């Protein structure tokens, strides 16, 4: 399973396909202060990326994947910092 959902941490490993977008969305909706572990994630479906940008969960572990780490992470991280700074 690329997606493991716990009480307040979701762990994404491998490739997150469009199939997992809906459960992830449900979990993000219902979870208070959600945290996401992207360490083992190699690819996110665009829908999932959009979810992360929309719900802005705290990313607890940077992905090892170079593409995600270089191009996607800064965005998720920055948004969170900005959010924290503004609130």
């Amino acid at each position: 399973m690329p997606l493991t959902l716990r009480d307040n941490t979701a762990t994404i490993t491998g490739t997150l396909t469009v199939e997992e977008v809906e459960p992830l969305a449900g979990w993000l909706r219902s979870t208070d202060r959600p945290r996401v572990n992207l360490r083992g994630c190699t690819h996110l479906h665009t829908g999932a990326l959009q979810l992360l940008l929309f719900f802005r969960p705290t990313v607890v572990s940077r992905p090892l994947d170079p593409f995600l780490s270089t191009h996607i992470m800064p965005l998720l991280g920055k948004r969170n910092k900005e959010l924290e700074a503004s609130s």
Partner: protein
Amino acid sequence: MNPLLAQFLAEADDLLSQVDEGLLRLEREPHDADLVNEVFRAAHTIKGSSGLFDFPELTRLTHAAEDLLDAVRGGRLELDATMTDDLLAAFDLMRGWLAHVTTTERLPSSANADGAVLIGRLRAPLGGQDSPAPAGHGPQAAPAPAATAPQWVGALGEEWLETTASWLEATSASLRFVRYTPEEDCYFRGEDPLHLLRQVPAAERFVPVTPAAWPQAAEYDEYACLLSFVLATRAATGELEYLFRYVPEQVEIADLGATALTRLLAGEAAAVAEAGIRLGDAEQAQDARALLEAALHVLSALPQEAAARAARVSSVERAVQSVARALGRDVEFPAHDAESVEAAARALLAALETAVVAEEAVPAPAEETVRSLAPAGPAEETAPAALHPADGAADGGKVGSRTLKVEQEKVDRLMELVGELNVAKNALTFLAASAEEEFGNRILGRRIKDQYAGMHRIAEELQAAVMDVRMLPLSVAFARFPRLVRDLGRKLGKSVELVTDGEDTMADKDVIEALGDPLVHLVRNSLDHGVEAPRVRVEAGKEATATIRLTAVSDGDAVVIEVADDGAGVDPERVKRKAYEKGLITEEQLETLPEAEAVNLLFLPGFSTAETVSDVSGRGVGMDAVKASVERLGGTVTMRSERGAGTVVRLRLPLSMAVTQVMVFSVAGQRFGVPVDAVVETVRVPAGEIGRVLRQEVIQLRGEVVPVVDLAGTLRMPWSPAGATRDVLVMWVGGQKVGLLVERFHREVDVILKPMEGLLADHPAFSGTALLGDGLVLLVLNMKEVLGVAAHAA
């Protein structure tokens, strides 16, 4: 495929061949003004229709060709061989593109680049701004980076852009910038934009752009893609085009150098963008206007039918959208209906006008820089020789559907050969029989029969395939009626609407052709006798406009065609009286004939109920002529009528007349055939069970009395049945069962019926001859006539 597009493709194919032919002739007779006009018109039509679809490259290229032809037409230019070559190349390129469109419904990704080169060459003789590459230019010359950067590049971040700009400045290099805006429902098509973007080689920077306003959390739809992406890469434009080849309309690529980035950062480009419309050159504005006007024109003449209407509106919507995109504008359609599309088109037109004015006042640095999937527009300086028009032609084949126009004689010849193959094939069974009987070799006989079975299967398939070639849709037969009904309706002062249904039902070409006259007759009859004048209709509580309905459905081996009207219907009493007056029925029949059967009197020769003989119909050669010609085709006619509610005439015709299945039997040693369709059953009855009613021999079949005709006697052949049993072939003829006394039954064979020729041509008892496998000629009986002869003889 969108029916509008399919039609365009088919039309374009014809137009392109017209252009080709015209151009070639023009080369020989360069001063033929009509010829120039013809070619110009064809090119113009292609341009006009192409505007309805999302093919800006095609429209631009035809536009350039059209301009050149216009100059030639106006006598401003002399057509020389080079120009002809360029024109031919341009139309060849279009053909290639359209072939690509036929298979993929979009232009090849190289269209813009290829088109731009040819546009340059076509414009060169006009002294246009788009001169072809200078001679000294090497074929590898890279397209020049654009001078201004689109606004979206700003998404990459000021800081990064500054650094990059200074680096590019120092190295005189350029980067490719891509904006990718996936469609909202792209996930449902299995697209994963992020996955696609991961594959962009040498990506320098990549930024997902979140929408300006996110929806409320409650309304957030995780399956709607709201993101777009901007990225900068060192990859070449070609690589990007390849990568995004499936979504070219969602991608913008710009090749930008330091100057453009600096300008962007200085806010200079913003001034251009604020004009609302990014104008390329005058040509683009003109194209855009032509497209929008075409769109408005289509919207003003939408078809009534809902599905066709929706298809047309949505294709116009796409066209308007692509114009908007080319102009650097976004259009929103509040609803996908004709009104909102029209409003958007009008708004764009208005904006275009103001922009043109503004443009003239302030010559802005308005070099067209961004186009869907191409770095530079007209300024592109690729070597002209590097064109590859074969690119599209090779992967698509023919434009439109892959059809072949074949002369009918060739198909007929093929059919004839199939017939002969059938005959030759049938000979094998005789061979098998003689192997067994004459040479006493059962095994060889068996083997021949096996071979026969194989050949039979192949021959049947071959026959089906050839028949399929001959099949035509009934729309061919229906095509003339809208005009006929309109003209006749006006002439008779009746308001009639024609509704056709099932035009795509297929039938053999011969059937369709032979159907023409009877159908015309029936429709005329309906108009003349069936449909009442509008005043009468209103008095009867009907709508003033009558409806004539032509319907075709296929029914097994037959096709059923109905001509129905909602007119006055047939008055059975009047029909009977008229028939009696004309001496067609006896007084007794006048009293006893049920009303339902009275309508059938209309089919009697010499019957016409119209009070006055009009020039439309009613010369006394009415329905009987229809009946005769339909029966000649092996079909039947029935009529159903309700007073005041209308009349329905139903024709039932065989799908094909080429091959007839015939039941073979012999009488007095002579073989005859009858069409299998008419055969009900074959029975063997004890000789004693044949009785007599009046002077007619009859048999009783499951409680039913069936008259039996002695064929030998009727045809005056010396034969009298021997033995204790009689073989009777029971057939369905003219609405009743009839038995035929025969000597022996043979088999069913497929034959090609040839009409009787020469002295026998008018012999009514035979409908034709066929060659049997053993070389004998089979006479096929026309049962109706045979019964007539029998009745006469008795």
